[in-house]
């Protein structure tokens, strides 16, 4: 048994099977193949070259030509090369890869919802506006905030919107201020956002527990501080229990507390940012509220804020008229403007609302409890084999480091690749930056104890492999279609599109 465990392909979770080879669609193309048929034209033909003159396109774009079955096989084959939540646990820390319920997909495709045009008359958009309104109410209740916009298209876009609100607020008081304080444990989007909004970034060192050093913060905050961007729970999965003192320090100098809501999955139904002093925050509907990540988007990043920031929200805002009808109000002179055309990623609102309705108050609370329970279970089961850099209690995710493994030359990235052979998607590698060799694990509430045990098993087996046969880990993955890819050459000599040989 011990011998077999060292070898790839003998895990309890997976068995190797064949996948089909598939070239690029362009390589499979042959002239004259078709997968479409238009309805016959019921109006007079036109001569495009006459109508368009010099704007007429004479050469066709070289798109592939394939038959319908070739197309469905093409994409189905590609799909089988992906790992997905629908296949197994996806413990990417900070990404909240929870189950994406299929009913969400179903309702988002109902004709009256999917076909709604953003400019159709308000009286024929009451269903869509009602969805926006109800989702806003639910999110405000969940966060304890007082006003909200759903317009931002993703989390980073929400950060951008939130910092613009802060800027407009300070500007209205006469001085936009100069700096935004960001802990060194933050997501990279935070400093990039502050810079986009014209702020100087003050990088703030975490204390030895990975949290905010409150005394140092009191020194750092000044009349030129616009805001502190804080992730809570932090990126090491720890709740900032001095959060209210932090808020007080900021507020005493007129600065705002921005909360990156990436980790809201640890808080829903248990505590509310609005109650613990947050002034403005974004949510990630694609994390906490189960809308699918889709291979990297679409996301949706609503921004919730306190009353004093409400005048600055992007236009339009949804309001209920005296007639009981919902309206879009564009007349908001203090607004920061639009951050996106139309009203945001509406299709994601539908899915997020469906998730909230499926859970209700008790379900959302239990979701949070289960997410935290699962993370703590993994922590307990692995803390003897992997180094725990911070001993503070974990919330919805746990961060280990590769310190014990590096003495055998194995790093976090190698262990991650080896996890693939055991049938799991890797955890988040090398983030947060404050933990050298970080291994950030977020199981979410979706995983059963059985799946968690398989994961624990895999992680423990890998730890043993590192001791007994580190090369097998260094060479991983062994079971995938392709082995480790040459990223250096990809960046040095970029090939970003196919060209006809």
């Amino acid at each position, binding site marked *: 048994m011990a011998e077999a465990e060292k070898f790839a392909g003998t895990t309890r979770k997976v068995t190797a099977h064949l996948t089909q080879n598939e070239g690029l669609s362009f390589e499979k193309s042959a002239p004259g193949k078709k997968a479409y048929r238009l309805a016959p034209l019921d109006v007079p033909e036109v001569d495009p070259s006459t109508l368009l003159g010099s*704007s007429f396109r004479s050469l066709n774009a070289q798109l592939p030509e394939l038959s319908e079955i070739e197309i469905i096989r093409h994409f189905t084959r590609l799909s089988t090369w992906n790992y997905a939540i629908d296949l197994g646990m996806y413990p990417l820390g900070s990404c909240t890869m929870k189950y994406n319920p299929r009913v969400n997909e179903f309702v988002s495709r109902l004709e009256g919802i999917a076909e709604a045009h953003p400019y159709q008359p308000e009286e024929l958009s009451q269903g869509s506006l009602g969805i926006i309104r109800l989702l806003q109410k639910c999110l405000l209740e969940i966060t304890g905030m007082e006003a909200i916009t759903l317009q931002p298209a993703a989390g980073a876009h929400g950060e951008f919107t939130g910092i613009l609100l802060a800027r407009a607020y300070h500007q209205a008081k006469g001085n936009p201020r100069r700096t935004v304080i960001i802990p060194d444990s933050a997501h990279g989007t935070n400093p990039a956002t502050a810079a986009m909004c014209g702020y100087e970034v003050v990088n703030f060192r975490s204390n030895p527990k990975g949290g905010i050093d409150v005394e140092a913060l009191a020194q750092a905050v000044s009349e030129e501080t616009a805001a502190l961007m804080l992730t809570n729970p932090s990126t090491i999965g720890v709740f900032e229990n001095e959060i209210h003192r932090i808020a007080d320090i900021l507020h005493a100098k007129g600065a705002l507390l921005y909360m990156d809501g990436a980790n809201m999955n640890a808080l829903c139904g248990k505590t509310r940012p609005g109650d613990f002093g947050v002034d403005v925050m974004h949510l990630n509907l694609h994390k906490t509220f189960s809308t699918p990540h889709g291979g990297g988007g679409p996301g*949706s990043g609503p921004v919730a804020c306190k009353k004093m920031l409400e005048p600055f929200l992007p236009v339009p805002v949804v309001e209920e008229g005296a007639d009981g009808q919902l309206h879009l109000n564009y007349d908001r002179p203090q607004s920061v403007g639009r951050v996106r055309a139309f009203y945001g990623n509406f299709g994601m609102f539908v899915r997020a609302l469906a998730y909230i309705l499926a859970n209700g108050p008790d379900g959302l609370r239990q979701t949070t409890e289960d997410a935290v329970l699962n993370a703590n279970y993994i922590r307990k089961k692995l803390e003897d084999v992997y180094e725990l850099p911070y001993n503070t209690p974990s919330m919805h995710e746990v961060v280990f480091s590769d310190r014990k493994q590096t003495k055998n030359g194995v790093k976090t990235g190698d262990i991650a690749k080896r996890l693939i052979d055991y049938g799991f998607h890797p955890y988040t590698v090398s983030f947060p930056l404050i933990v050298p060799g970080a291994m950030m694990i977020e199981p979410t509430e979706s995983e059963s104890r059985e799946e968690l045990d398989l994961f624990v098993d895999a992680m423990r087996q890998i730890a043993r492999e590192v001791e007994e046969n580190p090369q097998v880990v260094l060479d991983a993955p062994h079971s995938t279609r392709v082995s480790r890819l040459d990223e250096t050459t990809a960046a040095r000599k970029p090939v970003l599109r196919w060209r006809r040989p």
Partner: protein
Amino acid sequence: MLREIGASSIDDLFAIIPQEYRLTRDLAIPRQMGESEIVDHFKAAAAQNANGYASFLGAGVYRHYRPVLIDAIVQRGEFLTSYTPYQAEITQGTLQAIFEFQTMICELTGMDIANASMYDGSTAAPEAAMMAMRVTGRDGVVVARTVHPEYREVMHTYAQHREVATGHKAREVGYGPEGTNYAGRIDLAALEQAVTEHTACVLVQSPNFFGVIEDIPAIAEIAHRKGALLVVAVAEAVSLGIVRPPVEADIVTMEAQSFGVAPSFGGPFCGVIAAKEKYVRQMPGRLVGQTTDKQGRRGFVLTLSTREQHIRREKATSNICTNQALVALMATVFMTVYGKEGIRELAQQNLAKAAYAAKTIGANGTLLFGQSPRFSEFVLQTEEAPEQLHARLLQEKIIGGVALERWYPELGNATLWCATELTTREQIDQAATVMAQAPAVAAVR
């Protein structure tokens, strides 16, 4: 599990949250629903929206047929429930599909490179303008008033702090009036005046918000003469099947919603930035590149990530983190289904339908900018106010063109109409008939 952890109750795990901030009541949100109730809830909402109406709405969101193959493919859990392809060995499906997407966008736009997608067309345009600022080291932006008004608003939101810092405001350039060579297109003489040695880029949309195709070679010449870049936004992607691609541009931004993506009340859609190869290192957003594995087999990876926020933090090209991968996949399947011939045939049908609609519906008013080439939209000026016109059309279950007064007060009673391959001759004829019945009194505003 609690026992294994060594906790006596679930609340032990939340003990770090100070007591006064713990929520001890239920959230005041609707109670937990069964699946059938959820479906009913949204069916009721859907019923409160427009159902069974003929629609002539376009203006940045276009109603095209979406081949059923698209949904069959994007509903595969392996695509739907996968994350950003950071672990290339187990996300080759997503990566190869994006590589195909990038290639097809290049083919359609005539650019050398394209990214893996942006949030949407309205955010891609300002991101491209900021990219032009990085390339040229200049801060000024000159924007045509014929660019989608909401894109321009987003542009202003993105640019405002840079303006404060540099004093270079985004300048808008108007369009030529009726009866001139540049009716409904950017006023070239005014453009010439507006572009200076501080101009990073000129931003135009083509087909523009009025549906008119801009004179890209002439605009490029003016921009380039002063060392500025030309950014061309394409909001109606289907137009590229038959309209000459803006090859003189330095950067092309796109909204790919037309490629198989539902209108969905305005999103999620799929923005794109494509550009000349030499600008690749200033490109925002994700890029997929081809490489090989240890055995020499072809594979794909996210590449050039040193431009991005997770590496560069405050010095990144943008704060953008996600793209719109699943929507880009819809567009990829759409482009594969229609292919080389189909995209042209489809575009030609749109052209024909819009030409017929402009002639038929246009007979009930003044067709503006009629001498300029256009794709699938047209502007109609009527004696009757748009509110009245709309009210009469709605009675016959027709949604008329978008009223333009809110953005272009100088155009008075103007509406923007769109016809696509899904618009039938019957719908066009019926709309024209209703419009012809305009009561004489209604003509007086």
